[in-house]
């Protein structure tokens, strides 16, 4: 008898059906992955299991007996813990308060026992080999650490069923490997771990079985031995995708567009000297906190510079604001599309033209509506943004992949010479991922210099012509990508990086 049995679960929001008759058996002590394109219904399914949404029909059986979960509290009682895709920590509170939110150790009168609270927190973190000050304010932690807090928060309840919805998207490889060790431990102790990720590699590495969803339907479950990337992808997208990555740049002798000389931002990065060539994609690999995003911010004028200089086409430039950077032909596709990328409440057209308003001006500060209309339609076509008539739909109503495309369109519309893309495919399904990769390559071929920041090594290797490795605020090395292997890059990242400490 399986620990968790999902029986014909269906769910629809208003008119559109997100889940139809999902039925899966999940066993005690296994790590079971779910994979599927964005909008395939993974997260919805998890939210239903977690008691945040209620299914329209169908039932859950835990150890064979049916359970009804009206709210997260019920789910917790059933021993179900869920780590959400979007951060759900309160950053105005301390780590300890977050970990034990709503179940703080209190005395009879509901007054909190701070000492115990903090001690418990420390021990919880010890379990995954991290020591942390329990009274640290969460807002002062890196995104990665915040994610860890989130995970610890769930783990600290003794959960029978642990759901992780893309827990690794913000984590550094080190944190990921810690997490995986932990998951294996939990598995040993008989916990059912449900794991959701877009990274096939991770899934193969960690899971015993993987179930694939497509457009709200259950496609099938694969055992460990039958997990072939190609198979999984076929099941996900319903078609073959041969050759995940587009070909490299034809030539590597484009002239240098952007150059930094000993660029320094105190406490962020130090002495970064880098040459960016026309027509090339420069992959920038580094862990979260390695200073890569901060470096990008400086290049984009969103953050200051304390030392060194930036040369654009040979001429030194002072970039005081993104506005200025855009004028100079620099674009930055930010890593967090919801918070710093898109205007989710406004329609696609408005989002596409957001950073190129200056280009679509008629006269006297008036906008040329027709033109912005054209521009939008053009990119909707070029990037295959779905639905294709979306130019006046709110971005909120699009799927994650399409939102990311809109974000990309925003920057294409700005006609940059240099385009910095930060985690361009985070939380994007395979189909969209390929599309974005080929677009980036196409852009490069059209003569744009692209800097791609990513913590997905395969992506870096697959796409970029030269790889810049950053570690703890230093540019360790820049490698020409001729058949680079993950090992070499990692070696640089850690071994060399290690020396600098």
């Amino acid at each position: 008898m399986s620990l968790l049995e999902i029986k014909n679960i269906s769910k629809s929001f208003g008119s559109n059906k997100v889940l139809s008759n999902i039925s899966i058996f999940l066993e005690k002590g296994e790590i079971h992955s779910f994979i599927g394109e964005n909008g395939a219904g993974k997260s919805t399914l998890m939210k239903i299991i977690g008691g945040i949404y209620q299914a329209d029909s169908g039932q859950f059986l835990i150890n064979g007996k049916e359970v009804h979960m009206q709210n997260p509290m019920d789910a917790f009682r059933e021993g179900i813990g869920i780590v959400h895709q979007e951060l759900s920590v309160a950053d105005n509170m301390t780590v300890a308060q977050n970990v034990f939110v709503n179940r703080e150790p209190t005395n009879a009168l509901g007054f909190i026992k701070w000492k115990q609270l903090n001690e418990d927190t420390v021990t919880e973190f010890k379990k995954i080999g991290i020591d942390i000050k329990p009274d640290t304010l969460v807002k002062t932690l890196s995104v990665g650490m915040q994610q860890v807090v989130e995970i610890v928060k769930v783990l600290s309840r003794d959960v029978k069923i642990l759901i992780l919805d893309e827990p690794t998207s913000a984590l550094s490889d080190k944190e990921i490997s810690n997490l995986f060790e932990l998951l294996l431990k939990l598995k040993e102790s008989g916990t059912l771990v449900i794991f959701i990720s877009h990274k096939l590699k991770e899934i193969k590495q960690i899971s015993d079985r993987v179930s694939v969803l497509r457009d709200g339907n259950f496609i099938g479950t694969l055992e460990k031995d039958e997990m072939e990337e190609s198979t999984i992808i076929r099941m996900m997208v319903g078609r073959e995708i041969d050759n995940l990555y587009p070909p490299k740049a034809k030539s590597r002798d484009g002239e240098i567009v952007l150059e930094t000389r000993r660029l320094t931002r105190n406490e962020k990065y130090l002495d970064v000297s880098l040459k960016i060539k026309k027509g090339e994609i420069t992959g920038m690999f580094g862990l979260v906190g390695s200073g890569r995003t901060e470096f990008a911010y400086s290049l984009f004028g969103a953050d200051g510079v304390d030392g060194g200089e930036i040369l654009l086409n040979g001429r030194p430039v002072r970039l005081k604001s993104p506005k200025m950077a855009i004028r100079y032909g620099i674009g930055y596709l930010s890593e967090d599309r919801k918070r710093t990328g898109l205007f989710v409440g406004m329609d696609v057209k408005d989002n596409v033209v957001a950073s190129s308003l200056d280009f679509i001006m008629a006269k006297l500060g008036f906008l040329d509506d027709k033109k912005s209309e054209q521009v939008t339609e053009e990119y909707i076509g070029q990037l295959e943004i779905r639905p294709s008539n979306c130019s006046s739909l709110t971005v909120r109503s699009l799927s994650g992949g399409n939102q990311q495309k809109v974000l990309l369109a925003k920057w294409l519309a700005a006609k940059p010479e240099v385009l910095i893309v930060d985690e361009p495919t985070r939380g994007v399904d395979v189909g969209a991922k390929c599309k974005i990769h080929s677009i980036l390559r196409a852009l490069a071929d059209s003569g744009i210099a692209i800097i791609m920041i990513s913590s997905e090594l395969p992506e870096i290797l697959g796409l970029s012509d030269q790889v810049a490795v950053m570690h703890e605020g230093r540019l360790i090395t820049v490698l020409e990508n001729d058949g680079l292997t993950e090992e070499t890059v990692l070696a640089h990242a850690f071994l060399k990086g290690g020396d600098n400490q």
Partner: protein
Amino acid sequence: MQKRKRRIPVSGRSITLIIIIALVFGVISIIKGELFYSLTNISNVFSNLSYDLLLACGMTFVLILGGIDLSVGSVLAFVGIVITMLLNRGLNVALAIVIGLAVAVLAGAINGVIVSKFNVAPFVATLAMMSSLRGACYVLTSGFFVVGLPDSYVAIGRGYTLGIPNKIIISIAIMIFLGIISTRSRVFKQMFYVGQNANAAYLSGISSARTIILGYAMCSLLAGVAAILMTSSFAMGQASFGTGFEMRAIAAAVIGGASMNGGEGNFVGTALGVILVALVNNVFIMFNGSPNWSTAISGIMLLVAVAFDLIRTRKRGESV
């Protein structure tokens, strides 16, 4: 049909309002007959609205930016007093007006700077401006009316052009101006971006600070214009002018479809909101409602109006 949607800035809300207003008009005309047909009456209703209209439109700017401006009432009073005092000292009318408007813009800009640069809650920032300026009014006048204004100035508010009260002409002119802005202007567009997501706006090369300051300045500027209309048509400046107007303005704008969370709002809606509120008050008086209740009415009005949002928000809630 997308085209139409873009060309005319009429939201679904506006249509609801038009219907309601039409109904009210109809009912009154049936019950009371002729009244609302006579031109003088209509024009008169509108000329009485001009102050509220201007303030509410100004407020719309700020609400779109995701802010709020409690200081409009005080700005109105203060500008009015500055202008009238200058005129009283025999200053040239045009010059006095220019100075007055400059003061208004300055006040707004200060609000904007405090909000954008120093990241202070708009409520607090403008609350401070509100009490400071109101205090300043009394400091300047110690409560006395400022009178003895030149006829040329008084004519602005009292006079007629082609048989239409100047107040209306000016308000309509401004409304047209705002209409154009709201369809085409880049800066206005940028206000929506900032109101929606300030960080994303910044990273899209929109200087949020400048936009916000501009928005608040616009808001105060319109309050300044209202001050001119008011002081000139009453031929006096007074420290208590515009008390409590800010709430009326916010109410009208919200009724018109502006959202307190920013990124939403349009002038057509706001104008309709103003008209609706005034209309209800008129009806109330028309049927000799007890004056004791008239305050309560506006409150209930606002509640009923925001209740319209229920449907819209429900819609939105689904597309998570």
